[in-house]
């Protein structure tokens, strides 16, 4: 994961390595150390029962990772967008649209599992690509494009579902979703690992590997580092941008499928505010909102950090209003730490 971290704008410079030392290493893995710290704190502060640390129980850890899986999947896509200096505010709404789509297609239209999933994912991909085109080709800032996209996706979800949550029942009869779909919400490996977590893991690993082996990675960091320089040195900026927003839309739709199966419902109000949680995970993960700097591995650690934090606060029954304060302060702290980071 170090390879994709901090790729300099166009030509590789050894600044980051040269600055060396323990401090640089710590900075580089900010979110991983942060995650470790929160994890240790969670163990210390976990309520106990008969000597058993409740936080560390297998069931609880499975709950923690399951609860972050949707935000995690979205945050991986969000990392790509933020790496090129953009932002995507539409992901929560796209999640809602995809959840509604999964439910309507499989339950009301009685489509099969695969065609439904393919269509839903394609909707996310196309929606993202269109947003990418609007920002790359017309030159509207991605904040505005995706703010509009948020409204449009939410509106489409409301229209598609008649404004109501579509309940999902499983079976072979009419108006029942295929049982294959239900499997996505189950657990595997002896009932220990929730499938949504596996999906998140596959997405994260694929993203890390993709950024490592493909030339696309260099382009991505180049566009984020200095768009003009990237264009002048022959990077296909427009294509990179469209691809990045398309990937982000695709992953938001995937998270929507996972959301629908976990809650047995697709509702047009699903995923409200999830874009902010995803951005928080990316920021805590050490990716710079200015673009060009950051990593998927950091984002994964950031998402897990938020999940562990949420869990240990809940296990200790910290007042929900105080929880909001604490989470806000953690985000500020992570962003402040980025300012202290040695420049590359």
């Amino acid at each position, binding site marked *: 994961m170090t390879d994709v971290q901090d790729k300099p704008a166009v030509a590789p410079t050894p600044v980051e390595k040269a600055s060396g*030392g*323990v*401090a640089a290493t*710590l*900075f580089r*893995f*900010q979110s991983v*150390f*942060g995650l470790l*710290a929160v994890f240790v*704190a969670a163990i210390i*502060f976990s*309520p*106990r*029962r008969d000597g058993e640390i*409740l936080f560390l*129980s297998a*069931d*609880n850890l499975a*709950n923690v990772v399951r*609860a972050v899986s*949707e935000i995690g999947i979205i945050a991986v896509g969000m990392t790509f967008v933020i790496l090129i200096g953009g932002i995507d505010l539409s992901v929560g709404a796209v999640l809602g649209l995809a959840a509604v789509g999964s439910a309507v297609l499989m339950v009301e239209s009685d489509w099969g599992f695969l065609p439904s999933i393919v269509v839903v994912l394609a909707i996310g991909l196309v929606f993202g690509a269109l947003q990418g085109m609007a920002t790359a080709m017309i030159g509207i800032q991605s904040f505005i494009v995706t703010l509009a996209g948020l409204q449009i996706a939410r509106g489409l979800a409301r229209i598609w579902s008649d*404004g*109501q*949550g579509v309940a*999902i029942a499983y079976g072979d009869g009419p108006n029942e979703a295929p049982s294959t779909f239900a499997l996505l919400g189950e657990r595997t490996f002896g009932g220990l690992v929730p499938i949504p977590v596996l999906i998140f893991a596959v997405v994260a690993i694929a993203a890390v590997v993709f950024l490592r082996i493909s030339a696309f990675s260099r382009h991505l960091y180049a566009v984020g580092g200095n768009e003009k320089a990237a264009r002048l040195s022959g990077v296909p900026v427009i294509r990179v941008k469209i691809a990045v927003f398309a990937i982000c839309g695709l992953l938001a739709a995937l998270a929507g499928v996972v*959301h629908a199966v*976990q*809650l*047995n*419902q697709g*509702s047009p*109000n*699903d995923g*409200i*505010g999830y874009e902010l949680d995803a951005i928080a995970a990316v920021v805590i993960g050490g990716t710079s909102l200015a673009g060009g700097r950051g990593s998927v591995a950091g984002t994964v650690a950031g998402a897990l950090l938020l999940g562990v*934090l*949420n*869990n*240990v606060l*809940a*296990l*200790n*029954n*910290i*007042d*929900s209003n*105080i*929880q909001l304060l*604490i989470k806000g*302060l*953690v985000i500020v*702290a*992570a962003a*402040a*730490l*980025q300012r*202290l*980071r*040695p420049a590359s």
Partner: protein
Amino acid sequence: MKIPKSTLAVAAVTALALAGCGTTSERTSDEPQAQSSKACKGADGKYVIGMSQANVAEPYRQRMDDDIKAAAAEVPQFEVKFADAAQDNAKQVADVENYITQQIDLLIISPNEAKPLTAVVKKAYDKGIPVLVLDRKVEGDAYTGFIGGDNVQIGTEAGKYVAEKVLPNGGNVVEIKGLAGATPQAERNQGFAAGIKANPKVKVVATASGDWLREKGQAQMDALLKANPKIDVVYAHNDPMAEGAYLAAKAVGREKEMKFIGIDALPIPSGGIKAVEQGRLTATFTYPTNGKEAIAAAKKILVDCGTIEKSQILPTRLIDKANAAQIYAQENPTG
């Protein structure tokens, strides 16, 4: 700059965690319960109750939590913990899972929506945790008891009141409805229609959707006032929308021409009972928060080792000028 950022992160996070961790739920209980029947340890036991609320941003739901807190304070064996899902089904699922991890003795839940919460409520119930469901049901029967109001009945009472007391000689009603697609909205509408049937001269001349919100009720009423020269009664599906409609009528000097009827009657300063007492609303109908009743049921299950009814429907009550001040003082003695 050589300050190890992660060290700072550790310090910051740990400090925050420390600051927040005032209460740990360590308990010296012997065994996790295997069945509901084992949940009861009698009057000598200590019980932790987990309350999972759908969204405390709604005054009704905040009041529900407050009622539970107040009622539980009277039971020395009870400690109640609260979680807020902020209207997110996924968050509420996680909240209940966390309660299961904590091995609470009883779960009270007011579900955000039925379908998405059914599985996790069943999971808690199957682990032997007694579950009380408030206000909105979950599917199936994997819970100990449901306590709630009957929105059809409340709508009917409101309809009868309008047909018999307010407009015995007939008149025009406008109806400001709750959020489209919400069950209480459909039920309060359906009940009202049944209630006014007794008097065929009472007509609903226009309806609008106020989404439960005061400002939306006000905006919709602006339009209704322009379109309808004669309005005798405004029936709103909750008090905030009725108040919004009142403001709209007042703005054009027509508030004296019509009566405003709401639902919910929360005994809080911004609630419907005060509005009736102060003369803005003519009447409102209580929609029970079920908080007091939930703690009474919990006491029955845990302390008295008794059983409770599977479904407990609480009656509504008419609040008008005659009883508003008295009921407010009774329901909210402190303010």
